[in-house]
């Protein structure tokens, strides 16, 4: 079997090492005990990982397999009987404009992620240099990332209210005719994407800051001695030094903008043209009871995310990612 007594991981007891083959000459009580002990020893690692693997199979792989199965049926989620419909659901996902159009909403969030990464990069850079109240600014910029999504939803619904905080501040600058930030379908997605920037910028920022700080400081000192200014240091040292993690954040933001859910779901419930693919999937499954189509949608999203991840692995082979 996989384990033999000379293996590095099974130097269990001194007694085993005396019988490397463990094959008894004649069956005796001691030998039987030994084989039992050997079996138990071989089982040990499986016992340690059993719970984790069982949960993984039960709550990730079994549902994923079910998704594939449901996606070729017309199941409504309740009935006992369900019919095989082939690829009909997939055809509907790609041809029904009500379903496919919501993919365009992702573009707002993807666009916003450029702003988010740009801001994060700027603030990470200036805070990596000597700055007064550095910890304070770092904390303030990062804190939104930790706040409960429902709370953020309410904070921004309040901010965007007619004559609310945002309108008041804009009026200070002479902008007296503000739009309906959430009510106007033309604007709503921008407002929600902006909320998303506010919420997630801190995470990119802290990642960049960590990466910049892991660049050895004597490189800056050498550059300083050579007379390089901060701007030159940024282009020549910082940007190349953290190129990988920036690329990584961009790739993650593709997956992230395809699976936007909480902010629009909490703030508008998907009204005013703010529905996203995930909201649509959930509503198809649990409101319209079309589990078949919803499963096909989930599979499509899963495939896209897998493709994006695969491309990312090709582009940035050293960096491992998780998309949670």
């Amino acid at each position, binding site marked *: 079997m996989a384990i033999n007594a000379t293996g590095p991981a099974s130097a269990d007891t001194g007694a085993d090492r005396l019988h490397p083959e463990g094959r008894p000459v004649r069956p005796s009580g001691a030998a039987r005990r030994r084989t039992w002990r050997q079996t138990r020893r071989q089982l040990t690692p499986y016992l*340690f990982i059993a719970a984790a*693997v069982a949960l993984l199979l039960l*709550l990730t792989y079994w549902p994923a397999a079910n998704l594939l199965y449901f996606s070729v049926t017309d199941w409504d*989620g309740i009935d006992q009987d369900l019919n095989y419909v082939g690829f009909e659901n997939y055809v509907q996902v790609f041809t029904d404009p009500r379903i496919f159009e919501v993919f365009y909403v992702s573009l707002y969030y993807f666009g916003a992620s450029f702003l988010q990464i740009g801001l994060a990069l700027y603030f990470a850079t200036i805070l990596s240099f000597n700055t007064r109240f550095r910890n304070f600014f770092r904390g303030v910029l990062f804190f939104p990332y930790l706040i409960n999504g*429902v709370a953020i939803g*309410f904070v921004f619904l309040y901010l965007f209210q007619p004559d609310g905080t945002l309108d008041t501040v804009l009026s200070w600058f002479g902008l007296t005719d503000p739009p309906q930030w959430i009510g106007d379908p033309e604007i709503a997605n921008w407002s929600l994407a902006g909320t998303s920037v506010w919420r997630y910028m801190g995470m990119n920022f802290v990642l960049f800051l960590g990466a910049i700080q892991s660049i050895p400081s004597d490189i800056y000192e050498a550059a300083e001695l050579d007379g390089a200014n901060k701007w030159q240091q940024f282009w020549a040292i910082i940007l190349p030094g953290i190129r990988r993690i920036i690329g990584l954040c961009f790739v993650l933001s593709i997956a992230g903008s395809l699976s936007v859910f909480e902010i629009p779901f909490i703030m508008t419930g998907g009204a005013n043209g703010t529905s996203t693919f995930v909201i649509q999937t959930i509503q198809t*499954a649990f409101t319209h009871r079309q589990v078949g189509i919803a499963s096909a949608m989930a599979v499509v999203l899963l495939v896209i995310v897998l493709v994006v991840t695969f491309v990312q692995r090709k582009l940035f082979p050293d960096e491992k990612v998780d998309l*949670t």
Partner: protein
Amino acid sequence: MTTIHNVPRTGAKAQRVTVGTAKYLSLVIAAACTLLPLVTVLFASLKTSEEYGTTGALTPPSNWLNLSNYVTAFDSGEMLEGILNTGIVLVVSLAGTILIGTMAAYGLDRFEFRGKKLVFALFLIATLVPGVTSQVATFQVINGMGLYDTKAALILLFMGTDIIAIYLFIQFMQAIPTSLDEAAMIDGASRWTIYWKVILPLLRPAIATVVIIKGIAIYNEFYTPFLYLPSQDLISTSLFRFKGPFGAQWEVISAGTLIVIIPTLIAFLFLQRWIYRGLTSGAVK
């Protein structure tokens, strides 16, 4: 670079001063953009409903100690139930995650066995499955087990999805020398004893990281309780429910929102260093 030397001294100094000013100005603007939405919610939460109706969003409350909206949020919003339920789910899920996660990490790091590579691959691929959409099928599993609308459903889901914790534990365990295990073995300790008495205590820093990161994630989780536990409230869902009955009563909604944010703020102020470290190690491994 030569241009710098050509600039007269005072010019360079002036330039540095303006660059410095621009830097601090941008930081102050960013801090204001981050804090203003929260501060105005704080203002609103301390106003009486009459005061809320007549004053602007940026007018501070007349009485900074008017906590009546918080009382209303607690009483009629049933936030206490939400906090208690969140506490129960949090404690049980964390204990389960730590036990299952450290055991799996010990099994994966300290043993060679058939199928080890496969198990690693299964864990890795699982991180890619988008959370919310797969609920379409996960829901059927939970429902089939008869756990729909119980706290057990949430606890099971929170324990089951934690692959990042397992990675953190493995990472940390690799730094614990195997000679410790071997020494214990020579003393006659079983594998379980080694895990329980030697490894687990040494994993304490990693456990603390997981408790903080996972604790915040569970506290903030919205969709899982919304979908699986409709008859009871967790903190997120109890706040979400404010949307209906309190409709336009923004002073009460604001109070409820702050009740949810304040524990996070306190945790952040006390655990900053752990949070930064945990999140960066969890996001990019």
